[in-house]
């Protein structure tokens, strides 16, 4: 186990913003929350599954709701601790570790605050290693692990624990509960053993996020060779450098959808089109898919390499489009049906990244 330092936290915030792939919520609030939790309850250890009792219970936690509401109805604490302890009570077992579901965006950090308060380690794994908009979009679903029993809680002490037949129904029930509970809630789902995390989870996600952030921060400081080191570490590739010439946003079925068009910096005949559904999901050049979900599309400011979220995209920004291969654990049967282009309504084949690390 190793202690998560404040310096790690800064790198983690940057890594989490990048792994948000344009979405996942602003980690700023979550970071303030982690800092206060560390002040009040002490530091947090990151543990590998091999360091924990294989039969021990691992419980996840995340924030679920609407980002705008969370900016006004700031986290309290009990909604996260409450959903974890109530699920533990339902299962009749105490957890040995807390796990993030989504290492990407603000949900990377929330579990750390909860772990600090509960005096538990955070297990170095997750189920996405990027941001996705729905609860069932995990490698656990591919492994046949149910999201339920699961719990949703608010800050006042209202808690629902429920059991569902499929992870898709789990998503619907959770979303419906959240609408009744103030749209800024804690969720705990996919309860499992350490052994299951070891077998089915994405390994080393938290460390990866910190390391990725550290490599990107070196790029931002302008260190020689840092860009190449960053791309080599992540297996990523810079596909396009250009200027945003069109951004069209709309909200349908609860998702912030949009289309982004980028014109190449030096060759105006080349344009890249990126489709957005909360996250940046599909990148096309001349109608040809270049990077497709579940591989990650990240947009960096061309000048300072700061990741740009979909809310802050604007005409005229000069950007680099980076593709990062998704976690290798995604590559198994059922991936495309769950999180491939067709799962988001794009009639386009999945195009694995060229030369991506498996």
């Amino acid at each position, binding site marked *: 186990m190793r202690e998560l330092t404040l310096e790690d936290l800064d790198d983690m915030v940057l890594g989490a913003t990048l792994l948000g792939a344009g979405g996942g919520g602003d980690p*700023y*609030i979550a970071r*303030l*929350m982690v*800092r*206060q*939790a560390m002040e009040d309850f002490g530091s947090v250890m990151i543990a590998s599954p091999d360091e924990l009792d294989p039969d021990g219970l691992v419980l996840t936690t995340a924030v679920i*709701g*609407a*980002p*705008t*509401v969370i*900016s*006004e*109805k*700031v*986290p*309290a*604490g*009990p909604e996260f601790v409450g959903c974890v302890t109530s699920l533990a009570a339902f299962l009749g077992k105490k957890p040995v570790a807390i796990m993030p579901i989504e290492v990407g965006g603000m949900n990377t950090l929330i579990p750390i*605050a909860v772990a600090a308060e509960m005096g538990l380690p955070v297990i170095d794994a997750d189920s996405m290693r990027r941001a996705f908009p729905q609860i069932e979009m995990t490698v656990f679903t591919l492994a046949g692990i149910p999201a339920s029993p699961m719990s949703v809680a608010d*800050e*006042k002490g209202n808690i629902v624990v429920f059991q569902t037949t499929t992870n898709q129904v789990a998503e619907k029930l959770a*979303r419906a509960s*959240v*609408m009744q509970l*103030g*749209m*800024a809630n804690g969720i705990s789902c996919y309860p499992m053993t350490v052994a299951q995390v070891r077998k089915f989870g994405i390994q080393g996600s938290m460390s990866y996020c910190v390391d990725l952030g550290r490599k990107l921060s070196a790029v931002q400081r302008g260190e020689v060779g840092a860009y190449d080191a960053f791309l080599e570490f992540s297996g990523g590739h810079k596909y396009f450098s250009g*200027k945003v*010439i069109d951004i069209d*946003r*709309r*909200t349908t079925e*609860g*998702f*912030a959808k949009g289309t982004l068009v980028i014109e190449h910096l030096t060759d105006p005949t080349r344009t890249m089109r990126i489709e957005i559904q*909360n996250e940046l999901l599909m990148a096309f050049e001349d109608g040809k898919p270049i990077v497709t979900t579940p591989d990650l599309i990240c947009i960096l400011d061309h000048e300072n390499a700061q990741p740009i979220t979909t*809310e*802050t995209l*604007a*005409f*005229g*920004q*000069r950007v680099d489009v980076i593709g990062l291969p998704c976690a290798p654990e995604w590559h198994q049967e059922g991936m495309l049906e769950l999180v491939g282009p067709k799962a988001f309504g794009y009639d386009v084949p999945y195009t694995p990244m060229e030369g991506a690390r498996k």
Partner: protein
Amino acid sequence: MSRLRIGIDVGGTNTDAVVVDQDGNVLASTKAVTTPDPSDGIAAALKAVIEGIDKSHIKQAMLGTTHPANAIIQRKDLQQVGVLRLAAPSSLAIRPGAAWPKDLHATVIGPSAIIKGGYEYDGSEISPLDEQAVRDFAQKCKGVVNAIAVSCAFAPANYEQELRAGTIIAEELGEDYAVSLSHQVGAIGLLERENATILNASLFGVAKRVVDGFQGALLSHGLKVDSYLTQNDGTLMTAEEAIRLPILTVGSGPTNSMRGACALAKLSDALVIDVGGTSADVGILIDGFPRESSAAVEVGGVRTNFRMPDLISIGLGGGTIVRDEDGGVRVGPDSVGYRVVTEALITGGSTLTLSDISTKGDRLTGFGDASKVAGVKDATVAGALAWVDEQIQILCDRMKASRTSLPLIAVGGGSHLVPDDIPGVAGVIRPAHHSVANAFGAAIAEASGAVDRVYRYEAEGRDACLDDAKRLATEAAIRAGADADQVRITSVVEVPMSYLPGQGCRVQVKAAGPLATH
């Protein structure tokens, strides 16, 4: 005879003043040095600019000032504030003042409490307001701090609880006790709005002195006129209001400069570039107002959610140093700054600057001794100017909101560097009086009102919701002094909210109009 207005702008270096008639003509202008006590500079600029003007025609005076901004940056004259948040049990995971710089926190933040209260996204209460807790907190602040900042979850949508808390504090500590309520200060984003409200309350003393100094200077010249201060968004508030909301003035400098430049050029939609000795700032005006930045704005190291002009700055100015090296011509990023008047080649110095390049390249004339740059190679001039032109084109490109070409207004002492032809720009305009664009911007400022709240389109329909927001913004503008017949909607921004039921949408509407004459 015409009705006249005085505009004064206190900047970091200069205090400028203008007298403007009702048609926007500059009748007089002056530039004085900003003094350690800025009131002295204001008095001096005022005295100079009204020389020879018939004072009986002066009806209004507008002040744009950096006092409050400087007070925060220098941690000077700030008062300590009690911080009350109405949101519990929500928000307990992040205490007030989180992420503030340590020294500012120690200077400004006094007793703080998060008590029961606040609203949900749908308008229901998170908790009813804990009135006894408000009373207890007021008593805790009594004799300890002289102001209290109150913030409530979703106050931009519903501020009943904030008003009630304000009433209770007045009952406990007296009607004159200073209270700042968050819904008057900021928009959506509780932590950022709370930060702004705390800073606002800490500036009450500074604001009172500025307004007293300004009104005192006016009175000492026998000017019994309406007095206003300019806000971050380029619109006005009365001097009395400014005493209660000083934080809304901290970004007014660049806004006044941009609006002044645009009005001097008699345009309402344009790009503006302000080139100084060290840097160039580019902004854009749409319908006479600067486009605001989408990113969070920090004031003195504290994150706020203010409306501030969206500016992009680069190190390109008259004093920027040019080097001709083996690898080619390298420009900046360092600069001799204001010392360009002694250190550039043309002014008898020994440093090759962009002002020298501009002279040799025939862009700058009538400044210094052109013969001093005879030895500069043409290739160096071409290389440096190519860099300047490319940078300015990139800045303009980044700032534009669409592919439509807009004119570019060039102001500032280094504006000679701006080329006449820029791809994607519909002409470069260099207006007269551009050196006092800031003070002119203050003089022509209008009254405004704004609304920022979440609507649910499913219930009322989008059109009805937008109409409601426009009506509220218009009413707010009229309350702020705008002429009811001339108020217009200046911006409407809709931000659809993901996951929110009932087609939730954040709507931001702004209205503005010229001051009503009375």
